[in-house]
Every structure is written in structure tokens, then in C-alpha cells.
């Protein structure tokens, strides 16, 4: 087995070979500017963009004209929050979100606060769930936007976005969903789930980095304020020449994701369950997040009696994530893990495994063995060997 083993699919996925071919082909033959409709080169490139737009739209049951291409989910989040909040600022200046959101959402809210908006940051329950009733209670007369992610990137819990969507729709408040981690893993239907704005990322679905998309519900979101200025591309909402090869790659990645979603999710969920069956036998290994309401590919565990940096350093054969910044003592542990009731120390001793299409059973078994060895070794080195079970 080749090591280190890649188990960081929630950070970035390997690019599908067909996507690579599509992108290379596009770079070779689709070099015209997709906005140059006066000649065939431009029209060819424009067609590639149109195809990609339709492919992205189909993954979430949207119409192609509801898709705005961006540089990634971070830009899509910024555009959705800042663009929609500014445009609706006459109606009100209050936003509802949660502390467990991606920094792209949290920092956009913080930024809006400097512009006179206020934000309510909901705290998830001990399982990482944002209760729809909590969203309902947080709504005010001036609330213009609610932003709740579909799947939490650190712990993998799935939020009931359909229920939250209904609440927002009933109150006529825009609902934004960061779906970077759920696309291609869970069914997304922007119609039945009452979603008004939704962010997607190419690199999380076996597509390229540097491309994402924002869905804008045409019936509900007439206009948002662009962040960039200087061109009419993407209906003037995201000016700048569309990166044809990037969006073509993302489009095909979405098409493949749609075709493979059910099989992928089933296969990867089996692997995640196998991993947890192995890890939960070890003393002091705690699952983060709801035991059932979770996405197929993410498993986050905290380990008692083991220092976080050494845990990660010891797991050098596994390409995993911390799930929280823990390199130095001054770094704040993850808000998500702390909201689950994990101590700072436990939050630092957290490992996020995220699995994907290329993960094998043998790799899972190797990961369990490695994990077991490292925590046993570190606990044996520690002054007090008894394991405190939280």
C-alpha cells in the first residue's frame, strides 16, 4: 500500500480523469472568449460554458440561468451574503447564521457588521445540529437573510435545510445554503428544499480548484449587489472573463457526481462505518457530531489523554485534517467542537477523516491500526496513563 494515504477528501478531491481530459481539451480548442459571440471561436467557448451551466444546474434541480460561476465556494458565499444583504438593506439589516459555518460565511457576516448589519450566530446542540425551531426563534422583523450550511465541513453533520428553508420561505426571508460538502453526496433540490441561494465548489466533487458556483433562485432573488465591477459577464453579477476550462471541468464533475451520487454515497458510507467500528473499540475515542444525521464521507473523532499536535504528527502516514487549528498554543480551538461541549484540549486532539471514491477497505484498516498504535504510544509516554473518558 502506498503511503501516506489520502483521507482529506473534505479539503479537496482528486480530479476525475475525464474532467482533466475535458479541461485540457477545452484549453486547446476552447480558447476563444466566451463573450465574443461575433465569431465561432467565442461561440464555441460560450457553448462550453452553457453546457457546464446546465450540468451544474441539473445537480441541484435548478435552471441553467440561475447559476453564476465564481472562483470557488468562498467567493460564492461572499457574493451571496454580502450581495444579498446589501441589496436588501432597505428591508432590514439582520442576518441569522450559526457559529458552525465556514469562515467564508462567518467572515462575510463580520464584514457586514462593519457596514451596520447585525447578525445572530446560533450555536448547534451537543450533536452539532441547528434545530429549525432555533432559526425560527432568531428571526426578527428586520431579518433579510438566513445562512446555514448543508453539511458541516469539520464534523459532517447534516442540517435539516428543507425545514429551515420552509421557515424562511414562510417568513419571506432569503435562505442561503453552503453546499460545498454535500453536493455529490446528498440529494439537493433547491425547489423542494426552498433554497434561494446556494454555494458550490468544484474541488470537493472531483473537479478543479479555482471554480465554484452560486445558485440564485430566479423567482426569489431578482438582484444582488456584485462584489466586482467592470464587465457584464455572469449577468453583471460576477464580471470578468469566464474561466472556460475551469467551468467546463466543474460542469462535467457535476454531471459525474449526479450519475454516481447514490452508489458513491453508499460505498463511502460503508467505509466510514468500517472506520468508526474500528476506532470506537479504542479507549477514549469520541465521535463528534450526531451519530446518524451525518454525511457519508466525514468522520471526526476526539481522543482523550493524547496531545493534539503529537497525535497529528504521529499520524504522518495518513493525510488527515485537524478539524481545528492546533499548531500553536495561541490558536483558538474550533468553535464547532467547542459548541459540542469538547474542552479546548479535546478539541485540539481531534482528527477529521474524510473519505472518497478512491478510498479502499485496506486503507481504512491501515488507518485504524495506525491510529491505535499512535494513541497507545503517546498515552504510554504521558505522566498519567489512565484514560479519562469524557
Amino acid at each position, binding site marked *: 500500500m502506498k503511503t501516506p494515504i489520502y483521507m482529506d477528501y473534505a479539503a479537496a478531491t482528486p480530479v476525475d480523469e475525464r474532467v482533466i481530459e475535458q479541461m485540457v481539451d477545452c484549453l486547446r480548442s476552447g480558447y476563444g472568449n466566451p463573450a465574443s459571440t461575433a465569431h465561432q471561436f467565442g461561440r464555441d467557448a460560450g457553448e462550453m460554458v452553457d453546457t457546464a451551466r446546465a450540468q451544474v444546474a441539473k445537480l441541484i434541480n435548478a435552471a441553467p440561468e440561475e447559476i453564476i460561476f465564481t472562483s470557488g465556494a468562498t467567493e460564492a458565499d461572499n457574493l451571496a451574503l454580502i450581495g444579498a444583504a446589501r441589496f436588501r438593506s432597505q428591508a432590514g439589516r439582520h442576518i441569522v447564521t450559526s457559529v458552525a459555518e465556514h469562515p467564508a460565511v462567518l467572515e462575510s457576516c463580520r464584514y457586514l457588521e462593519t457596514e451596520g448589519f447585525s447578525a445572530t450566530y446560533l450555536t448547534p446542540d451537543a450533536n452539532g445540529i441547528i434545530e429549525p425551531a432555533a432559526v425560527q426563534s432568531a428571526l426578527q422583523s428586520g431579518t433579510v437573510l438566513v445562512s446555514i450550511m448543508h453539511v458541516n465541513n469539520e464534523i459532517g453533520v447534516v442540517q435539516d435545510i428543507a425545514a429551515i428553508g420552509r421557515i424562511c420561505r414562510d417568513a419571506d426571508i432569503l435562505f442561503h445554503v453552503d453546499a460545498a460538502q454535500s453536493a455529490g453526496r446528498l440529494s439537493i433540490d433547491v425547489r423542494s428544499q426552498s433554497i434561494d441561494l446556494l454555494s458550490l465548489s468544484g474541488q470537493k466533487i472531483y473537479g478543479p480548484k479555482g471554480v465554484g458556483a452560486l445558485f440564485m433562485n430566479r423567482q426569489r432573488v431578482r438582484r444582488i449587489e456584485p462584489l466586482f465591477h467592470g464587465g457584464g459577464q455572469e449577468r453583471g453579477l460576477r464580471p470578468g472573463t469566464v474561466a472556460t476550462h475551469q467551468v467546463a471541468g466543474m460542469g462535467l464533475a457535476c454531471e459525474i457526481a449526479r450519475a454516481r451520487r447514490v452508489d458513491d454515497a453508499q460505498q463511502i458510507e460503508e467505509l466510514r462505518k468500517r472506520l468508526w467500528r474500528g476506532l470506537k473499540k479504542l479507549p477514549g475515542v469520541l465521535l463528534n457530531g450526531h451519530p446518524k444525521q451525518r454525511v457519508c464521507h466525514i468522520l471526526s473523532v476526539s481522543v482523550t*489523554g493524547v*496531545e*493534539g*499536535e*503529537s497525535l497529528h*504528527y*504521529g499520524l504522518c502516514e495518513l493525510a488527515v485534517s485537524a478539524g481545528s487549528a492546533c*499548531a*500553536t*498554543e*495561541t490558536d483558538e480551538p474550533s468553535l464547532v467542537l467547542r459548541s459540542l461541549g469538547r*474542552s*479546548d*484540549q479535546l478539541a*485540539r486532539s481531534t482528527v477529521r477523516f474524510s473519505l472518497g471514491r478512491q478510498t479502499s477497505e485496506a486503507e481504512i484498516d491501515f488507518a485504524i491500526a495506525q491510529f491505535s498504535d499512535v494513541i497507545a504510544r*503517546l498515552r*504510554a*509516554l*504521558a*505522566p*498519567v496513563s489512565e484514560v479519562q473518558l469524557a
Partner: protein
Amino acid sequence: MHYSRIVADYFARPLNAGTLPGNANSVSSGAAGDRALGTEVVFQMRVRDREIAEMSFQAFGCPHTIAACSLATERLTGQPVDALVELTAESLAETLEAPVEKMGRMLLIEDALRNCFIAWDNTQA
């Protein structure tokens, strides 16, 4: 985070890890740190004729902490007991090529070594 080759080696194969058999008269211990704050170290040593005959450590901490504890026990074994208070955090950091943000942990090891000396000194009264 930068981990030098020497840190990697000590982390993979720490020397003198564990405890020494004996009682407080034959084995002196010195501790420092707080596990809840991320680092806790304990040194133990057996002294014969004012010379450190044996030394061990236990550590809950980062790779640099584990490496520094291991390095300290290796350096000090066979040395006069006064060497415990002469070994500095700076010299551990320098050998391990530890980044500056690890200095606090090196100082904590220095404290634990001094506490070990004090514990031994108390048995000499």
C-alpha cells in the same frame, strides 16, 4: 510547523521514556506544566555519588516537548547532578532547531529539571 530531523528521530524512538523503580529516597522526581494547558512533563533520576546514574521522563506534549525531554535525559545521564540546573531551554531549542513559539515549552522542561534537582537536594539534608 517545522520539525527537524532530530525531533523526528526522538519522537519516533524516544530514549529513557517511562519511570524508574524505587522510592522517594532512591529516586528524585521533578514535574512542570499542566495537561489542561497542553504540556505536562515529569523527570525522574537516580543519583550515585553526586552523579546522575539513571534518568527517565514522561511527557504529555507536542513532538518538540517529547524530543526535548528525551534529549535532556540523554545529555544528563552520567553528568554531575549540578548539570540539572545548568541545562538551559535555549540549548535544548538550539539542538532541536525548535521554532521560537516552542520556547515556552522548552522553559517548562527547564523548570521540571530544576524541580528534580530541588527534590534530590531535599533528600540530602
